[in-house]
């Protein structure tokens, strides 16, 4: 957990959020140029969620999420170069060009994907937590899913087992208000997703997902519940996606004013910057960070564009592991 007035760790959170934002903007540009193909779901607007959660994460804790996964990977310490190279389908991407935006993994950073099927990652997250308990380690699995995913049946099957067996899993609902073009009130009989564990005796909390410190605080509570052996916890992060669902979404289901209003009032990065200025950080520091992040991102893009395509012989590799 972040200590009060610990400027250095706060600055670290700020940097991570900014890295995600700039990386995603770059990915959007590369998509427009035809350098990234297929589906590409940007995380812009939701940065505080993953960065706040990861401020609590210990080495060895696992992370698993959906296809909207770039932020999770950058935040958990994966190399922006390898992520961007995967987005562009290159040999030295995290999945050697075979997974793309939606399917990326890093065993060394305990990142278990990157899943393209809505909600399929949720029971898997419970399974990772099952393995933690089985091995008697103290690790927690942070299992993310969206407001739309929250209606899939397998989540409730996972809830039941997680609670029954007191598994160390934090279910993190990234409620960005929309599932593609469907707003939460058009898909859910009740909008309070954090209460959906009640029937299974799983505690839940609603969190301001645009405030990185609030996210961190709530996650600390949830994770220690898990580490104490008290079982799963649900955190509903109230957040917002600025961009279309994927690159080909004309986003006619909401007004530009609605989006602009959130950007003006709730932007997780701008607000946190204001907070840090109040705490006494000076403007020059931010300029330095800005420059530093820009460099990291443009290096990642250059690396990705210059990397070579996978070899055709890779087509048949990694279907099975040799004994």
């Amino acid at each position, binding site marked *: 957990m972040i200590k009060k007035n610990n400027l250095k760790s706060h600055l670290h959170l700020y940097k991570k959020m900014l890295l995600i934002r700039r990386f995603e903007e770059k990915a959007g540009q590369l998509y427009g*140029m035809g350098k990234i193909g*297929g589906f590409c779901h940007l995380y812009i607007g939701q940065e505080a969620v993953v960065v706040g959660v990861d401020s609590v994460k210990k080495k060895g804790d696992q992370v698993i999420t959906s296809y909207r996964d770039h932020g999770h990977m950058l935040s958990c310490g994966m190399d922006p170069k390898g992520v961007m190279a995967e987005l562009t389908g290159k040999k030295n991407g995290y999945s050697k060009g075979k997974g793309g935006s*939606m399917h990326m993994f890093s065993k060394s950073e305990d990142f278990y994907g990157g899943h393209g099927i809505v909600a399929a990652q949720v029971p898997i997250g419970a399974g990772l937590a099952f393995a933690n308990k089985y091995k008697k380690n103290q690790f927690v699995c942070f299992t993310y899913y969206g407001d739309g995913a929250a209606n899939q049946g397998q989540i409730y099957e996972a809830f039941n087992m997680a609670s029954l067996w007191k598994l160390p899993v934090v279910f993190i609902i990234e409620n960005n208000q929309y599932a*593609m073009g469907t707003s939460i009130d058009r898909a859910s009989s009740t909008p309070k997703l954090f209460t959906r564990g009640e029937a299974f005796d799983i505690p839940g909390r609603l969190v301001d997902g645009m405030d990185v410190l609030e996210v961190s605080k709530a996650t600390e509570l949830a994770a220690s519940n898990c580490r104490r052996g008290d079982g799963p916890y649900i955190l509903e992060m109230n957040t917002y996606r600025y961009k279309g669902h994927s690159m080909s979404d004309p986003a006619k289901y909401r007004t530009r004013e609605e989006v602009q209003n959130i950007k003006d009032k709730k932007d997780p990065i701008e607000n946190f910057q204001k907070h840090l200025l109040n705490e006494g950080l000076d403007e020059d520091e931010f300029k330095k960070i800005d420059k530093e992040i820009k460099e990291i991102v443009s290096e990642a893009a250059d690396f990705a564009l210059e990397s070579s395509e*996978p070899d055709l012989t890779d087509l*048949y590799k990694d279907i099975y592991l040799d004994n």
Partner: protein
Amino acid sequence: MNSNEILMPALSPTMEEGGIAKWLVKEGDIIKAGDLIAEIETDKAIMEFESALDCKISKLLVEEGTNNIKVNTPIVKINDNHIPLPTKNLNKENDKKNKTKKIINPQNDVHDIDLEKNETQKILTVRESIRDALAEEMRADENVFLMGEEVAEYQGAYKVSQGLLDEFGSKRVIDTPITEHGFTGLAAGAAFGGLKPVVEFMTFNFSLQAMDQIINTCAKTLYMSGGQMNCPIVLRGPNGAASQVAAQHSQDFAPWFASIPGLKVIQPFSANDAKGLLKSAIRDPNPVIFLENEILYNDKSASSEIRDELIPIGKANILIEGTDVSIISYGIGIKHSLMAIELAKDINISVELIDLRCLRPIDYNTVFESIKKTNRCITVEECFPVCSIGNHLSASIMENVFDYLDSPVINCTGKDVPMPYAKNLELAALITPEEIFEKIKKVTNLD
């Protein structure tokens, strides 16, 4: 390096060219990153296109209303030199790609081969013809309704159900939550209750979530109830590979469904077949799996004149008559086969092309009769090679018309690998016209 131009962006996985529906800037405007530049018409929708950086618009290079502008063509001149855009080199790479494509142009007007031109009749895309079939059947029978993710207000994730909410209202065009297993079971129940549901899977990849209800409920209840309880349901949506959406979103399930007694399975190629067969499917008292293909929705080769006829389920169609080789195919396999047949013409091989259209029941007779004439056979489909429709047909052909064969039947399929994301690997994983052409030569001993 030309960094003072903005290029036509790619705004969807399948977009190769776009149009300027509307300029949202004028020459001389100073704009900020995130400001809108234009409304761009893609293959799917009209999209707002925003600037990546702060700059000044010095010149608009194309007029409003211009269509068919290739991705990466300059559309605006700006006076900022910070915007990272493809270098000359990258553009060259694209040119090269376009040239190699030209040998076998995917935009070939192949329907000319198949259909007589009739200037007075409108040519429709597969997307439009499916929508028309749905609308006509909904008009004709008030018990027909459509449900699925994003089918109503969003007008369909692939815009197939465009306009249906307006015409039929939210009682009959229903947006569901993302709960495939739940809504498929619910629709099966509604079918038992006397309604005629059409369920759209956003793509058939997500039907896997609903597999139990499809196989164990929809397909078997009539039999298990001794003929009392039928399930008149249509389960439809795009099936097969799209473009670079990788392993979990690109697979062809046709042989899976075709192996289940109790289901009927259709995979049309042309717009006319799509319409006539979907209408038959909706009227059928049995559960019908109706497999569409994202790439064919808007594809010129599959667009066709609509004859407004009901097409019976279970009848193949001889698309091209020929004497040397029979190609048995369906769905997007037809598109590739048509291109391969163009290549075969150059070496004077006459190919007969049969579009199965339906995979259960299969029209064996048409297949056998063709082989009796040509004595050679290739099957072409996109699915995995193990347990393909071609495998099954090969066995039936051996059992029934073995004596007519002059050479072994060859099965052409996708490769035996999960679909990779990278473009070059994806191309290698899919069947290509060149591969089919090689098989044509092989089966006629010309290789």
